[in-house]
């Protein structure tokens, strides 16, 4: 039964050609033009605002993300994004076991701080086994130990006028350093911690050593890794391109990533 039967691949290629001839492809690029139109971008962003406002209204400020037991841990916690920050600076920190790493706490605070990893480990600690949800769709369960961000903010005397907390990172992606931000509801949430340990061991480099954010009610890209500065601000307008995060600025990921 060979001979006249076209191989499937060839058939599919012909079908594709026919579709193009029928004007499907110009139609598709028309769809992308709609996608890119500024007015459409504005309408599309309404979805984020509706999700943020309704989740903030619906979810108790202190409602906790589910915590799991050790039996539920992912066998391997998949790292994502930067796995090893480039540059001699970071390499030197790795070589010295992050002995000279400092986390500066600045902005709208009464007492700016410069915390060493020893300072951070000396603060009250919280351990939580939670599920990490990447924006791509996968999930991994890991156990995190660190200090509650609210504790650091209280130690620095964060001002009432602070509306957002900005997290600055040591990893450079393309042309800029990674950064993220959250509002004060998430900043003061009991499960929002600056973590230095994963599954009972010191945080691996690929997972953000020496210190990373855990912000459990939002997606993975909000969980800034390699954090070296925490800044309290009244507005995000003058930070980066003003959208509150590295990916938000570049490819229009939602700033509110609770969904």
């Amino acid at each position: 039964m060979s001979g006249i039967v076209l191989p499937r691949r060839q058939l599919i290629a012909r079908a594709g050609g026919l579709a193009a001839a029928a004007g499907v492809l110009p139609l598709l690029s028309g769809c992308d033009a709609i996608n890119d139109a500024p007015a459409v971008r504005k309408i599309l962003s309404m979805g984020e605002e509706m999700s943020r406002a309704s989740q903030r209204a619906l979810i108790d400020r202190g409602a906790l993300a589910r915590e799991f037991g050790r039996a539920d841990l992912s066998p391997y916690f998949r790292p994502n994004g930067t796995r090893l920050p480039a540059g001699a600076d970071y390499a030197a920190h790795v070589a010295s076991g992050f002995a000279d790493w400092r986390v500066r706490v600045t902005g709208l605070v009464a007492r700016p701080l410069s915390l060493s990893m020893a300072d951070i480990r000396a603060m009250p600690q919280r351990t939580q086994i939670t599920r990490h949800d990447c924006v791509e769709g996968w999930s991994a369960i890991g156990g995190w130990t660190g200090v509650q961000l609210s504790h650091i903010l209280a130690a620095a005397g964060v001002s009432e006028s602070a509306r957002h907390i900005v997290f600055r990172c040591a990893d450079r992606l393309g042309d800029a350093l990674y950064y993220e931000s959250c509002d004060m509801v998430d900043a003061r949430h009991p499960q929002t911690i600056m973590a230095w340990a994963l599954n009972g061991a010191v945080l691996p480099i690929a997972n953000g050593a020496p210190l990373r954010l855990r912000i459990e009610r939002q997606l993975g890209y909000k969980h800034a890794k390699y954090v070296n500065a925490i800044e309290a601000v009244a507005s995000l307008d003058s930070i980066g391109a003003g959208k509150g995060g590295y990916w938000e600025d570049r490819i229009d990921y939602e700033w509110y990533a609770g969904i």
Partner: protein
Amino acid sequence: MAEAETPVAPERPGPVRVYRHRLPTRIWHWINAATLLILLMSGLMIFNAHPRLYWGEYGANFDRAWLVIGSTPDSGYLRIGDYRIETTGVLGRWTDAQGAVQTWAFPGWATIPTRYSLADGRRWHLLFAWMLSIGLTLYMSWALLGGHLRKDLHVRRAEWSPRHIWQDVKDHARLRFPRGEAAARYGILQKLSYVGVIFVALPLMIATGLTMSPGMNAAWPWLLDVFGGRQSARSIHFITAWALVAFFLVHIAMMLLAGPVNEIRSMITGWFRLPPEKQA
């Protein structure tokens, strides 16, 4: 099929017209058709970001996936369990409009936008998810309060009889559609599929979608228990989406076979021309 309860007026000139679809049904039908198309195509874009499905709470690249759309250096494939199908040209490995080979799971003609953009796929999906949720809530309320459910979609006791259902299956298979007065009412298969879509599949899409939201998990952790974890919810979301596609294909086929002009006109104007009874 079921006998007509009231005989059609005899010798009426021209076709008998019945007011079949009320305004809320017509409006919701078309808004929902567009909304579901956008949700499907933007959803396939989101799937492309991680074309693997799992059961349970967690699941990432190092965990066993029950469904994978992937590529090798010269082919694309779909794997379900241990069963692998070559899908080169359509899934996993295909050629885009510019002639470049791409290895995203679903091809550009099936996604919004056509080029890879998880961010934009999410923007479309999460805005039109609101459209679906609000529209469905309003339509369900209207169907319950306005009598649509009771009068048109409610399955009568006699219709539940296996013989009656089997008869309707046979009639559909033989493309023997009801004529005359019987055509003014929904058959049992129609009722079951419309009720299934409105009250089961679409709410299931919304519920499993919300179960994937880390924010909603904190608000309603019981969602995770209902669906057996976030990754299970994602799998059910995907399966139900294709069940809706299957409904759509049958729906379109039935519309074409039953008379597309009359069917589409009735969903625009509300008025349906009853196919005349066959003269014995």
